[in-house]
């Protein structure tokens, strides 16, 4: 200990360590955020065992253990603090709540019954219980766990196939008919308001009315077919005994999948895990977005970002070319450059307000009055939609592209341009063949950064066209295929909506964590790509200089 404290203090080392601490803290914050999100998200789909718990008062519970914690009891010595455990008992329709806290001291017995079943249902969340009977047309066809379970497994795939067929008819076929009907009705209305010649109008009207009649006939046919399918599925039902003795009878078709969590092997668990992940990415949401998949949200996000990039890249590049290559450099251009730069820092909600006020109400309202008067007062373009949301985001991100493009344009060595011009190429040829190819990686970086920003923005979208549940995708088989006036779903908004607007936040949490991880993943991937592209660009320019 030959170091004096004063000298140590003067050396400044403690301060260096403190600044280092600040950096370490920032890094810890970032990393722990990502780790927490990932842990919460990825753990959720891993099938957990079902534990049966008997309490002191004789109550039985069947559920999955969520978390244990000490009971917050004021004025008690720490040593005597008891702990409690939260179980997901599911069976929302039987118990009313999905979760239940149990004092650990009250638990008298725990077991993992091999016959405990986990049913994932289309509605009402999961169901935990024991299968007792399977019935067909009201008659018991299998009784006792082993036989009922066999029967269930035999019937269940068939009911799901029927259900799939029902969904196809409801969404696709009846959807098509409805679309055509709506089209015909609007046509009728348009003729009645616009056609001056009564003879021709009458002709069109009869034709359209006939078409409507045919469509309605087809609709009735489909409805009849649907009814037979529903009846078919309604024949098979099964009876479940939940913990505590309550019984519940359900149609077999109401179950998405059922399995015995306490008998699953590691491989079985893994397979189930992957199935659930695939379902998350590819399926439609269920139970007001708290279960099922997020496919429409992924699709909406991707299409919106693509449309946005298609607009933002050419506009951004042209604006940057003008600023860097064509405009006379002076205080005016400098001011414009600063203004454009700063627009990147203007709050996104301001862009959203602009999008709503200008695109939706002024432009959209104008389009409606000009081209869709027959649908008024129902707005077609005069309400939030894909097009307006993408345009708003394009405005929001165009400064990013302009700045990135300008930067890469200015990094093209002067000698390249001079060489090209000296060899007789025109200015445009120089730009097209020398400058732009050289700046391409920079433009790409800008585009990717813009896409990342666009994918993560929520506030401006909330007011220009994103909804919690869109009945149709913005891209489908009906001409003209792209329906840019439609509202759409978005991953970021999904997080906000499910996490904060959902009636059952606790049950929705895992879904939100999953969506969050997906969104973070997409955005980190885009950003990493941008960083890699940028590094490539730097290297190339370094070696390309002559």
């Amino acid at each position, binding site marked *: 200990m030959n170091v004096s404290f004063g000298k140590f203090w003067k050396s*400044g080392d403690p301060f260096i360590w403190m600044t280092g601490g600040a950096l370490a803290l920032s890094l810890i914050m970032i990393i722990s955020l990502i780790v927490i999100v990932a842990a919460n998200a990825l753990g959720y789909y891993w099938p957990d065992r079902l534990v049966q718990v008997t309490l002191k008062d004789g109550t039985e519970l069947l559920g999955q253990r969520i978390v244990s914690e000490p009971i917050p009891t*004021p004025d008690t010595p720490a040593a005597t603090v008891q702990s409690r455990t939260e179980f997901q008992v599911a069976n929302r329709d039987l118990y009313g709540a999905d979760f239940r806290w149990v004092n650990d001291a009250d638990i008298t017995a725990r077991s993992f019954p091999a016959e405990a079943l986990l049913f994932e249902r289309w509605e009402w969340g999961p169901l935990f219980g024991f299968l007792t009977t399977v019935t067909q047309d009201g008659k018991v066809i299998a009784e006792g766990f082993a036989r009922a379970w066999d029967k269930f497994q035999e019937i269940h795939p068939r009911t799901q196939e029927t259900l799939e067929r029902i969904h196809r008819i409801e969404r696709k076929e009846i959807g098509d008919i409805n679309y055509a009907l709506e089209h015909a009705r609007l046509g009728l209305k348009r003729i009645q308001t616009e056609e001056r010649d009564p003879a021709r109008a009458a002709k069109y009207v009869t034709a359209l009315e006939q078409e409507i009649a045919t469509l309605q006939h087809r609709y009735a046919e489909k409805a009849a077919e649907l009814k037979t399918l529903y009846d078919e599925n309604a024949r098979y039902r099964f009876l479940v005994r939940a913990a505590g003795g309550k019984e519940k009878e359900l149609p077999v078709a109401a179950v998405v999948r059922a399995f015995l969590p306490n008998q699953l092997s590691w491989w079985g668990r893994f397979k189930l895990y992957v199935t659930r992940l695939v379902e998350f990415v590819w399926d439609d949401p269920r139970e007001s977005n708290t279960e099922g998949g997020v496919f429409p949200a992924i699709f909406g996000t991707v299409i919106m970002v693509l449309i946005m990039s298609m607009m933002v890249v050419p506009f951004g590049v042209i604006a940057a070319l003008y600023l860097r290559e064509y405009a006379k450099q002076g205080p005016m251009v400098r001011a414009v450059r600063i203004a454009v730069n700063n627009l990147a820092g203007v709050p996104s909600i301001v862009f959203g307000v602009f999008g709503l006020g200008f695109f939706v109400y002024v432009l959209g309202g104008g389009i409606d009055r000009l081209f869709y008067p027959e649908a008024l007062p129902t707005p077609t373009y005069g309400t939030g939609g894909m097009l307006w949301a993408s345009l708003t985001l394009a405005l929001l991100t165009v400064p990013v592209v302009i700045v990135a493009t300008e930067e890469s344009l200015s990094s093209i060595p002067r000698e390249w341009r001079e060489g090209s011009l000296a060899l007789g190429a025109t200015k445009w040829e120089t730009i097209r063949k020398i400058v732009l190819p050289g700046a391409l990686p920079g433009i790409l970086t800008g585009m990717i950064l813009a896409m990342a920003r666009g994918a993560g923005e929520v506030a401006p979208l909330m007011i220009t066209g994103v909804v919690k549940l869109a009945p149709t995708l913005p891209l489908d088989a009906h001409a003209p295929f792209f329906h840019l006036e439609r509202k759409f779903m978005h991953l970021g908004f999904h997080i*906000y909506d499910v996490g904060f607007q959902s009636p059952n936040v606790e049950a929705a949490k895992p879904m939100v964590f999953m969506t969050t991880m997906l969104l973070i993943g997409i955005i980190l991937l885009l950003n990493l790509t941008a960083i890699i592209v940028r590094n490539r660009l730097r290297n190339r320019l370094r070696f390309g200089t002559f």
Partner: protein
Amino acid sequence: MSDFQQVAPQEISSPRVNARTSASKKKGASPRVNLRWKQLTDKAAGVVITAGGIAIIASIILILFVIVAETLPLWYAPTAQPTPTPALENPHPLVVGVDEYQEIVYFATAAGTIEFRSLTDGHILQRFEIAGLNGQQVTSAYRDGIQHEVAIGTSGGLIIPLRLVFTPKFVDGKRAITPEVREGKPLQIDEQGRPLTSLVYSENGGVVRAAALVGPRTLLFFSQQEKTSPLGESSLEQSRTDLSPQLKSDVTALALDQFQSNLLAGTASGELYHWPVDEPEKVQLRQTFSAVSTPGTGISVLGWLIGGRSLIVGDASGGVNVWVQVRNEENSQDTPYRKAHQFRSHRTQVTAVAPSPRDKGFLTADVGGTVLVHHSTSEQTLLELSTGTNSLPLLTFAPKANGALTVDSHGQLFRWDLHNLHPEITLKTLFGKVWYEGYEKPDYTWQSSSGTDDFEPKFSLTPLTYGTMKGTFYALLLAVPLSICAAIYTSQFMHPRIRSVVKPTVEVMAALPSVVLGFFAGLWLAPRIEKIVPAVFLLVIALPLVSLIASFVWRLIPLPVRSRLRPGTELAFLAPLLLLTMYACVSLSGYIDTIFFNGSFPQWLYTTTGVQYDPRNSLVVGFAMGFAVIPIIYTIAEDAFSNVPQHLISGSLALGATRWQTAIRVVLPTASPGLFSAVMIGFGRAVGETMIVLMATGNTPVMDFSPFNGFRALSANIAVEIPEAPYGGTLYRVLFLAALQLFVLTFLVNTVAEIVRQRLRERYSKI
């Protein structure tokens, strides 16, 4: 010449360019055409890019103009357009009203009729004879100015209620309105059958309350309600009270509110008598108070604003005031009237008052023939309308509040079209304290909607601006020290190899969507922080302390061991140490809670200081927003630090300064403008952040600086309310104004930061 141009690039250009030119040459026809084509495309490209570039930049800048344009109508001065009116042959109507489309005007006349006249040509559309008169004379009439309901007072002490109904019908796309009168049963107000000289009347769900004067000092109160006996038989129960004994002066004006609970009488001596009439059997005078602007003058008119809570008092000297009931803090039963707003006075006696059926506006007319248009809440007198010199005893607002109508003492009709879109908006109502109905004192309030019809929206941007600033403050409180220290360390003391990993990591954090941070803060962090509040404060002290101790311990390690490790690797030791500290603090939190805060900090806070702990509070927001701001400040500050010319640093070190001294005395001052702009840009980001504040606060527009409760920020407010705001309405425009406020604030801050940064760059290049 042209041949040379074509050949030359092929021969000397780089292979990449070569390949393309030769390909294009194959396509070209003759060299001459090609040259012209080249010049043409060059020109075309120039024109297209210039035009396109200017158009794009202009359209970006258009944003500002569109937002400003949407807010402008808020400031438009109200206008009134006099419209021609037909002459009337019947000179002395008692009550006037007009239908919703301003096509039909109606009068109650002294002759015992209700006349409906066309406003376009004056011809009588319908004349209704009041059947209940039975030969009595009409002596007075009353209308509350909002409903199409008239009560007629007769010479025999009766009140005859009339309801006027306008039914619009569309025939061949044209509107035709049929007026209709539904007469109610006459009510005997004065059992002695004296003529009623003045009356007020209110009917609500079968309950009737009325008051009438039968002489200057004789005031009668009447009540009738249906009573159902236990056997199920219903009977009408009437009660009459003579209020005259309490009067000390002549009554000149009466007012009965729509809730049928307050009766007021104004007197010639300028006093207001207030009787609560909730219980008709026990009507007792509660208070008398002087309610005129200049003492000694009499009250000439009384009226209610829409909603029936604010009393308009017009006096003989022309004063116009609005009085409201204010709850007494000591005794909630006692609700005295207080003067809330004072308006521009008339030059002569006020003769009539008419409330607006749409908002808290009202009209007053005087003896001298002038009508004033006021708005109560914003305390403005918006317009002065002049008719001539005759007194104006009758006055009414059109039902859509888009017109005013008055009749002078000679029976001449006057009408104006009013354009008064946003009367409630002034700079004062937007940013100052405003005394709203139902409040005890003027205050800053934001409350844009409610369930009831007569609700008045309250648009004060002050609590929202305050919320934005509060959130920004807490975010910067965390972010500025952390990010600047981190930037100093990264640029000055860190090993370059680690730096090349660390910097992009922090930068990627900037790309994290704010909805993720908001979700994380609101759903994960908030419930956890609630349990470990003491640990949070402990961490603020413990983390720097642990870093200090670590550096001291480091010093104790023998030099040979230490020197093997390169400087800049402290991080590897610090990170786990800090994690351990955090863990320790969180575990200790429970003990601190039990020892100092009786086991639960939120409860302790509430019982000792009265501050409600809100789980989604400013602490959580500050933390989450800090996340968003740290990478921004860090990146810019780090750039500023590491761009400090190396020779300055080398010089300082060569003169014997330590690394820390160099960093603080040389690097920091040189880079300070960069730091300033870093903080400014971080500030801009925090101000405009929407999703985090939306998700991690309770969004209540309170003005309280406590870190333990939430707030409502401008940005979150826009996001929540604009989808519900009707296009072109006041709320819509006020939200645009809020957006404009954000735009201007961030744009200014960013511009200053950008200019500072450019100056700095020039300075570096000179050093």
